[in-house]
């Protein structure tokens, strides 16, 4: 019985009610932001300790703002709602998000939320890889205080984030990159209804001469216990003209920063090889979007 100890399903209308429920059930309370992750854990019998579910859909947190220096996405914005952001469909720097949003099936897109997919700290998801490549950070509130956490610090380990009990992600911020920038996301999957075996998101910014000023290369899927940035690949790219050779070199370098796993879906050797292939393809895709 997957949720056999569930005693309370609360739907708070303000943050105090969240605090009350957390105070009562402590670690055995779980925030429900969309439900797709919780459903996945439940059917595998991983929620046997959970006593309270806190459904936060009445707390707002669903703003979607194309600001001057950034794009801000409320935690309760569903993937389907995020697709409505006009800029997403034209801006090259946001293209990785567009790519990643196309991956989950419609049922997931209608239910899953941006805040929920980040709090899950699941490296097999698509959007967190893209958001980290865009240098995203989250605003977190709890116990009357607010703080900002970069995504690299939010993801601690598999299914483990750095939020304190009672803290909620309220918003994701993606800063506008300088100069000419573009991004891309690619996923290796068994079928269109699959978690990532490997996924890669890249974001690049170049100066007027085409020299790479900024590069972020992020890998997800079974390549570590969380989404991984490849500093080695980024170093290869920065300060260089993004030629075929430089991209090949960077793609080959990601292997130094990941620890591919073996499971029944893929061997470690295959994941390692595909991390390189998909990094190359993502970089080429981003490059093609620069102009």
């Amino acid at each position, binding site marked *: *019985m997957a949720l*056999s100890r569930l005693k309370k399903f609360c739907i708070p209308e303000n943050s105090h009610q969240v605090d009350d429920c957390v105070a009562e059930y402590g670690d055995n309370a779980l925030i429900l932001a969309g439900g797709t992750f919780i459903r*996945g854990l439940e*059917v595998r019998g991983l929620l046997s300790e959970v006593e309270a579910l806190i459904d936060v859909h009445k707390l707002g947190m669903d703003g979607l703002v194309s600001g001057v220096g950034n794009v801000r996405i409320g935690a309760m914005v569903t993937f389907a709602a995020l697709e409505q952001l006009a800029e997403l469909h034209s801006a090259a720097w946001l293209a990785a998000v567009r790519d990643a949003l196309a991956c989950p*099936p419609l049922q997931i897109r209608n239910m899953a939320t941006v805040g929920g997919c980040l709090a899950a700290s699941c490296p097999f998801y698509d959007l967190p890889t893209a958001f980290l490549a865009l240098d995203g950070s989250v605003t977190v509130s709890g116990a009357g205080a607010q703080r900002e956490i970069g995504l690299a610090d939010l993801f601690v380990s598999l299914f483990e984030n750095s939020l304190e009990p009672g803290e909620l992600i309220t918003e994701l911020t993606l800063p506008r990159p300088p100069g000419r920038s573009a991004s891309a996301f690619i996923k*290796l999957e*068994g*079928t*269109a*209804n*699959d*978690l990532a075996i490997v996924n890669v998101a890249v974001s690049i910014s170049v100066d007027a001469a085409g020299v790479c000023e900024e590069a972020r290369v992020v890998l997800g899927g079974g390549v570590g216990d969380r989404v991984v940035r490849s500093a080695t690949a980024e170093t290869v790219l920065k300060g260089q003209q993004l030629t075929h050779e430089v991209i090949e070199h960077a793609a080959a370098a990601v292997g130094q920063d990941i620890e591919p796993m073996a499971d*029944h*879906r*893929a*061997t470690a*050797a*295959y994941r390692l*090889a*595909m991390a390189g*292939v998909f990094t190359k393809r993502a970089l080429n895709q981003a490059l093609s979007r620069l102009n």
Partner: protein
Amino acid sequence: MTNMNVVGKRVLRQDAFEKVVGGKGFPVNVRLPGMLHGKLLRSPYPHARIVRMDTARAEQMPGVKAVITPADVPQIPYNPIFFMPVTSAGLVRDMLILSDTVRFAGQPVAAIAAISAAIAEQALQMIEVDYEELPAVFDPDEATRDGAPEIHAGVKNNISDTPSFAIGDIEAGFREADHIFEGTYETPRVHTCYMEPRVCVADTDTNGHITIYSSIQHLFGLRERMAYALGLSVSQVKVVQPPYIGGGFGSKLDMVYAEPLAALLSARTRRPVRIKHTRYEDFITNARHPMKVYLKTGIRKDGTFCARYARTQCDTSAYASQGPVVIMVHAHYGLMLGYRSPHLKWEGKVVLTNNIPGGAFRGYGAPQACFAVESQIDEICEELGFDPIEFRLKNTPRRGDPHPFNPEWKLDTYALDECLARGAERIGWSQRARAGSSSSTKKRGIGMAAHPLWVSGCVGFPDIYEHSGAIIKLNVDGTANLSSATMDIGSGQNTVLCQIAAEELGLADGAVLMSPGSTDTLPFDAPTHASRGTYSSGNAVKVAAAAAKKRLLEVAAVIMEANADDLEVCNGVITVKGSPARSMSVADVVKRAESPYMVIGEQGPAPTVLEEKGTIMGLSSLAPSTNPSPAVAEFVEVEVDTETGQVKVLRAVYAHDLGRVINPAAAEGQVEGGLQQGIGFALMENMLFDPESGACLTSDFLDYKMPTAVEMPRHIESIFIESNEPSGPFGAKSLAEACLIVPAPAIANAIYNATGARIRSLPITPEKILKALGKL
């Protein structure tokens, strides 16, 4: 045969709307008053003996109404498969409803009925079981070695059966050969993945008679096996026919533990008991038998076969079940009959292991065989430079030939040549590039496979049921009700049968409706399997409709003062041939037949005629006279990403000589569904198990990958080559299973054409392709 009103039309399915709004007719939606919910406790060990079982705590739990253990269950060994007499000499009866010995991880050891499924499931954890673990073996090669764990007492080296046959002198045949090819081809354990779970509701009355609702492909098969395993007579078991079930594909051709256990729990509690499998339980209930086929073929210079030898190892798993039957169909209709050779020999081995039981799956042994045969033919043609289409025609039967399975049958409507020619033209076969000649990263290739001979039912197969029946009853509004024990397992069978009845009766589209019954009220029907529904059940329906029509015209003749032979009926109107002004509606004729003898009208009482009185109906129960084989060919184009090993199927063209298309939309659905299952079998599906515990690792759709709509090709073409099969209803023979037999080898051959990589084991995963290309 050209002026048909209903047959050949894209008639809308009668259940289409009901299904999209929730499908209340699915057995999973059956609820009875006072119903309890059952759950099964399953063994965590793949091989163990139960030393002690204590159910006291579970029985004391509030809401629990009954707990059943092996001690409470008749210990009558049975075989679960539906389509043969349960006492058949060809069946191994080695299963018990509950046993002290478990032979696969997940085998039930106890059952609980409670007022809710949640309570029943919680109570399972209160049952204490001490097991003595026994050594287990999962690999069929290891299972047959000396010293391997003994799974069933007395079955030496776990070899359940070693069937074989030979024609001619195989050694002499190979001596004649100019070229000899050999290879070993392996196929994995895959699940049908029907949408509706195995689910049943059993209700026992005060006389101990059982009524059961279940999601199955054969009403009478369940009745026979329930009665046998429970020690009852068949009239004590009534199986209620659901209007439709949510898919079967062969998986629902055997009794599952839940059915007799629900009946026993119901008998104990005197309340209806429902047991519904979880998806995990469905996955471990049965699956297609993994097979390893060694194939050796001798060829003369002219490209004809002179010797064909094959050896098959079939992992039938923890119980013999379907294994000894499936391997025979595999050998005859899968491996050997489709291609001529003067010398042939086959040897089979059915092996017991501690894996989950093997079951039936669309194609019944032929998908495994076709992958071996059609892959090797492609290898031969590639090596010796034969055109694969001409090569096949050189070695296959021709129209009018005697049937290789039974020479008394003739291949009157056989058209492999046309399947090959038309399929080749549509795919652009003549433009096919040489294997592996593309230099780009993403390489395209075209491949094909044929299955020269398949079945329309089971006439001629030893000990397999093959007869059908139907009841047709006309109503006063000019409609008719058709009842048949055929199960519509999602293919549109009921609609097709109603079309056949309407055409024969001369009624309009939609005027015949299917009315479910039960084993108490319906004539026997063999299961919905073996591609038999349209052909065999269709024949019975047509005969019943003809009987009803004969009576209809006799009654009309009395009323119209005409000779019945001079009457015809079309679109619900009866007319005197040649005198269209003399007509009467079917409704009016039935009204008169059903009316009281003396009808009081405005003019006062008016007597009618006694000869016209009575319900107009027709009955039938019969087996078909023969078993016409269809031929099929499939052509596919694939794109292989040689950096990632991923394969996309871009196009598929499927050609099949099915006699007559009764409903083109339903027929296309069969082709497309078969292709989807075939792509899964070819490229991704594979049930995996923990090598130590035997626990299934792929027991939901996150871990068990099957193609979604996105993986399907955008272009699928169904070519139906029509003829008039004299033994079939309106000329029809079969379609269903072949649609899944051919895709895997066609895809494998296309991958070879694209890349030059020959993969002889399914599924052809990206990793296998990269390894074959030397890139991993």
